[in-house]
């Protein structure tokens, strides 16, 4: 598995949201993309999963250019996403939401229950709430459900869009622990985050996205000590610059 983005540009009408970014996600990695609001993080993920059309550049997955492949087929290729704002189907139960994650797989019952068991093991809370409507879950539980649902498709790469957004600090810790755990089980992860502290301490490599451009690429640990990143995203060390 290798996901590679080459010189990707995306426009919303006349506004250029991504100005030719390039990044690589290798098998087994957690790669994080950090940046402020409006930097283009979500656009990047939406373009990879096919919800936004590519203006120019290439998305290469497993050596194949997938620019023209519609979103619903990319799910089948092994690209799975827990979207921004969690994207739970509020009127479906937790179990039905999880089943939707496997929508396109002509799965046998055995595989379904195997994957359900795996997700329930990661998120015991979801098992307790299996028959409850998705819309009644708390924010943290919805995030668990979004990640669990994405895992149901047995993804080769898991795209996570701000999993910590709007969660209590305890829950954030919890979610990031699980992300590390999922990665340890062999799932490759592209993580988009505003919570740079957490993201950088969990990821292997990191990219910094600023107003549609990638301004830095480094090992995640190195960025934790980078003065610019510190001042802009970690909220400390401002005195080192000014």
């Amino acid at each position, binding site marked *: 598995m290798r996901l590679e983005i080459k010189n990707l540009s995306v426009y919303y009408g006349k506004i250029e949201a991504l100005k030719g970014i390039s990044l690589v996600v290798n098998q087994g990695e957690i790669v994080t993309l950090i940046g402020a609001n409006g930097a283009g993080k979500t656009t990047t993920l939406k373009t990879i999963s096919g*919800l936004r059309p590519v203006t120019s550049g290439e998305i290469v997955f497993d050596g194949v250019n997938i620019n023209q492949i519609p979103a619903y087929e990319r799910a089948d290729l092994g690209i799975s996403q827990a979207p921004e704002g969690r994207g739970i*189907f509020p009127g479906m139960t937790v179990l039905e939401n999880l089943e939707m994650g496997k929508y396109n797989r002509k799965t046998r019952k055995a595989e379904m229950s195997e994957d359900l068991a795996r997700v329930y093991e990661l998120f015991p809370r979801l098992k307790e709430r299996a028959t409850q409507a998705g819309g009644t879950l708390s924010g943290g539980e919805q995030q668990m459900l979004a990640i669990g649902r994405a895992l149901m498709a047995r993804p080769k790469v898991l795209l996570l869009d701000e999993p910590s957004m709007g969660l209590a600090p305890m829950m954030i810790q919890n979610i990031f622990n699980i992300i590390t755990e999922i990665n340890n089980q062999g799932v490759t992860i592209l993580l988009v985050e505003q919570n740079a502290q957490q993201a950088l301490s969990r990821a292997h490599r990191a990219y910094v996205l600023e107003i549609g451009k990638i301004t830095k690429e480094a090992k995640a640990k190195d960025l934790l000590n980078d003065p610019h990143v510190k001042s802009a995203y970690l909220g400390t060390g401002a005195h080192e610059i000014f």
Partner: protein
Amino acid sequence: MINLRDAGATWWDNASKLKRRSLVVSLILFVYALPFLNNPIINTPGSMFESVLFYPIGMFVLLSIGLNIVVGKSGLLDLGFVAFFAIGAYTMGVLGTRTNLNFWEILPIAMGLAMLSGVLLGAPALRLRGDYLAIVTLGFGEIVRIVAVNEEFIGGARGIAGIPTPPDMFGMKFEILNPKPYYWLLVSMILLTYWAVRRMSVRRPGRAWDAIRQDDDVAQLMGVPTFKYKVWAFVLGAAVGGAGGCLYATQILSIVPDQFSLNVSILVLACVVFGGIGNPFGVMVGAIILAYLPERIRFLTQPRQLVFGVVLVLIMNLRPDGLLPRKKREKFESETV
């Protein structure tokens, strides 16, 4: 207020198979026997009861079930549903008067043409969402009517007269003054459609429509070919509308474009919303009430529409989700979006 839907659903869930079957069978028998129950309580003074059963009641039930696939299941607001009804009726009118085909041969053609026009409208329009889609479908409904007014080949503003009745069946004669056979035929079509829609709703298409309605983008991420399913919802709705139109034309025997105005689309949509959007059984109940009420109070003459409007406003205030809303948990849709 007591929750009728939940009380009913709980009873249904706990009832044995025998109880359920006998309820369904007796309900169906009751519906088929309705034309004979000409009693003063349910009668419609001022118009013939059997005739009212066919149109508007039965016809609106059928159309509402069709529109419910589009609006209720997939969440696509269609304000031009009358177009498919008109296409079905005109297919019956044109082929019935110009060829030797009978009703049963024309019915599949009418449904096919309605479906085809569903694709023609749906393929470009379904790339739009929400209000934009509603406006395009509204326009489509009007286009069909205006074409009918202006196209002399299909009778122009005078419409088509002398549409043949269906051939005799089981010794029954289809006649203008005897609406019973039409009614029974319509009830059979409703039951068949209802059954088919129910079957589909619990399978993959139903799940896909649920997902599309609740979150179109996420449905795509899950691997649902959303565009394809939206067009399918549209086309199936159109087929039901076309079948309804075809049967309507062969009963009323002459059609004019004015019968296919925007009002029909709005009224059918009102039936769907009034009955409980997304719940086919509720939608049927809603259509029955909304179609029956104006006929029941016809003796009021002038204030009839006023009373109808007041009842509509009152009930929608008391039960904002409709008479029999879909399962309770789905209410979270509107709260979380």
